[in-house]
């Protein structure tokens, strides 16, 4: 029976080329864009190395220091009572913030107060996104972004190690000038992406021996998007010995498989709040917001004091945008499908007269529509692949490499199916309820 429907669908497609063309155009472009969005989403939020464990990570990125003073608000209410003025005075005791300083953590604060919370397998302190070096190589200029990290960094973030090894706790402790570089930097610096172990990279005031090559993160998340990874003890200046509260460091905690994220976040927040402050006249309150990966991402786009709200708002905004975007082509398709199907009124009338159920006709038309959608989906996929290639090549999104992998493919199939059913259901339902007499009347068979 399905092969019958299939043949019928192809025949119908061939019959009215104009409508078929319009439908296919709409379907393929809509699906192409949806596939691109899926590929983008997968790169940024999918569980790809080095962020495969992102659901089990808690980040400390911002340390907030405030000078809070008690603040009394005096409100005098005046009302006329029997020709006399009566006053009602209320005091509200609250607090006002005199000055705020927001920055990342210093190594000293993390090291002294924020090690080993309960329920955490591993944790890493690192400094990323703020260290950039100019390297001049025979008239070429490279901009190299460095991430300074401890040895645990490699256990928290699961980079794809292509050759060599990552630096060890011992090397970090002794400030050994070693480096792990990305394949991209290896290609730019040495002209090849393998066999560079033991070579030296000159950065800033020192030289580092390459001991490992990792695949560059495809996403733009700053905690992993570096070109070169160095032991944090090799940082320039006095960043490690400085006992200020704020600095350039951040922390990532990898939870136990069984641990819930809430208690860990609460413990980290509480431990930060208890850090003794040396000069209460400058700042008398210290706080941080431990965030999950999604919350961290959202809080960079939508600033809010509660990261959960930022995440919710980001999802809401993107969800609504996507809904609006999909709604229009769907409506359009429904509109076209109604016309397409109504043209076949007579066929339906005959089938019904010979005893076909409304349900059978409904399924037949939905099935036909799903077939067209898949056809459009295939065209869309080819277009999407071409466009992905173009986007990656042109570096519109610097360093970001969008891939079309199995997961994206599965999402796309799901999208196709959904789109086909939704846009086919309404017209099919309408047509399946046609009265035989109406359908046969006045139509030339």
């Amino acid at each position, binding site marked *: 029976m399905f092969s019958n429907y299939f043949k019928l669908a192809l025949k119908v497609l061939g019959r009215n080329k104009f409508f078929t063309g319009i439908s296919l155009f*709409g379907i393929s472009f809509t699906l192409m864009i949806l596939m691109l969005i899926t590929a983008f989403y997968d790169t940024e939020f999918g569980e790809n190395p080095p962020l495969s464990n992102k659901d089990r990570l808690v980040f400390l990125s911002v340390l907030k220091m405030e000078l809070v003073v008690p603040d009394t608000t005096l409100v005098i209410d005046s009302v006329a009572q029997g020709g006399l003025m009566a006053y009602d005075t209320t005091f509200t005791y609250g607090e006002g913030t005199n000055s705020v300083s927001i920055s990342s953590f210093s190594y000293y604060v993390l090291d002294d107060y924020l090690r080993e919370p309960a329920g955490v397998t591993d944790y890493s302190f690192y400094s990323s996104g703020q260290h950039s*070096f100019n390297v001049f190589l025979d008239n070429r200029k490279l901009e190299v972004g460095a991430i300074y990290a401890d040895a645990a960094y490699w256990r928290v973030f699961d980079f794809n190690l292509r050759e060599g090894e990552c630096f060890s706790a011992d090397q970090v402790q002794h400030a050994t000038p070693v480096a792990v570089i990305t394949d991209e930097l290896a290609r730019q610096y040495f002209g090849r992406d393998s066999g560079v172990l033991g070579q030296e990279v000159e950065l800033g005031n020192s030289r580092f021996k390459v001991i490992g090559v990792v695949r560059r993160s495809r996403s733009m998340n700053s905690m992993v998007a570096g070109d070169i990874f160095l032991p944090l003890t090799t940082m320039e200046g006095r960043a490690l010995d400085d006992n200020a509260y704020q600095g350039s460091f951040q922390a990532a905690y990898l939870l136990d498989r069984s641990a819930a994220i809430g208690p860990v976040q609460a413990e980290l927040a509480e431990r930060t709040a208890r850090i003794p402050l040396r000069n209460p006249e400058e700042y008398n309150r210290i706080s941080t917001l431990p965030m999950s990966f999604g919350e961290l991402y959202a809080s960079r786009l939508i600033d809010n004091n509660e990261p959960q709200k930022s995440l919710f708002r980001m999802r809401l905004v993107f969800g609504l945008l996507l809904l609006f975007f999909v709604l229009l082509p769907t409506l359009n398709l429904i509109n076209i499908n109604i016309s397409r199907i109504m043209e076949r009124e007579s066929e339906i009338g005959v089938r019904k007269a010979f005893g076909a159920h409304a349900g059978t006709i409904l399924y037949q038309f939905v099935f036909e529509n799903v077939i067209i959608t898949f056809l459009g989906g295939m065209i869309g996929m080819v277009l999407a692949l071409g466009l992905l290639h173009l986007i990656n090549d042109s570096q519109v999104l610097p360093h970001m490499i969008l891939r079309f992998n199995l997961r994206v493919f599965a999402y796309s199939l799901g999208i196709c199916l959904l789109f086909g059913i939704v846009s086919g259901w309404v017209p099919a339902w309408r047509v399946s309820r046609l009265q035989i007499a109406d359908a046969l009347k006045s139509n030339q068979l």
Partner: protein
Amino acid sequence: MIKHILTLVWNKKRTNMLMMLEIFLAFLILFSVFTFAINFLRMYQSPLGFATRDALLVQLMLDDGMDSVAHLEMRQQLRREVELLPAVQTTSFNSGVTMFSGSMWTTSNNDNGFLLETCIYHADEQFAAAASLNLVEGRWPEVSDQNNKYAPVVINRRLREAYFGDKPVIDSIIMLDGEKKIMGVVDHFKYQGEFETERPLTFFFLPLHDENLRTLYVRLKPNTPPEFEEELNKTIARVTRRRDFVISSVDADRVRQSRQVWVPMITALLICGFLILNVALGLFGVLYYNISKRRAEIGLRRALGATQGAITRQFTAEVMVVAAAGMLLAILIAVQFPLLAVFDVPAENFYWSILATTILILLVVLICAFSPSRQAAAVQPAVALHEE
């Protein structure tokens, strides 16, 4: 005529409902994207006010614990040696808040009898010449002005217009972190980026020994090859005795920063273009089908003496009524944005956007409706009635 068409449209309300909904949605989507684009394009129109081409910016790294004499000597030597390079025109020291850096320094006070809010930009005495600032009034201060009774400042025209109106400002004293004397007015200075609104801004002068002067703006002679950066790199490394400073091209910074707006804007406009094309094709197909189903009606009208023009007009008007209903509904929602002022976007941008969207959709609908209507009008009464 109108009443008649309304009846016709109402009679087919189920088919028309979908079409109306489609127009309604298309309007809202176009409206939001146009507002976004118009908003940023209007900001883009106002000039930056300084030279980005043939200019480099060096983020200097300085050793901690240098005293002011060391700072002064280091900067003097750096300036001397860099300006000796044949490709260099002028140099100027700025603070860490520079063009396209993403950081901003603002201050506000009530000391002048009104709330004065301004951005602050720190530079030395050579900045106006180095960055080709256009001074509309007064002059850029010199080194000797730093020892005057009042420290010199230069403001931008935006600040002058916002707070002083037509009153003369040159040589006035304003309270801004102490008493300052306004020495000049700069036409434009939009250092935050191309897609930003220009804010009131004040230039402060820092003497060369100030440790906050951590950036060096280097203006090059036109057509200096990029390889020059390596030469500059060596000179700076030699003078500052550090190698972890960063040189960037101001124009490249501008392009990189503007791309963060261009990329989403062009993407959104392309997607909109596709959506509109999609809707137009769909509309065309549906109208074509609907009208071809009404051949009998057309034949009858033609037989009774209606001209071709009258029939084209009738069908076009029918579609326009449906489209107008959808657009009216959408406009009712769209005008809420400027009226309620939910977003920090000037109200006129919303109105421009509504206008642009209305025109575009009307145009699309008209084109889509016209061709099937013409086809319908070409029906021969004899043929149409014979079929029936």
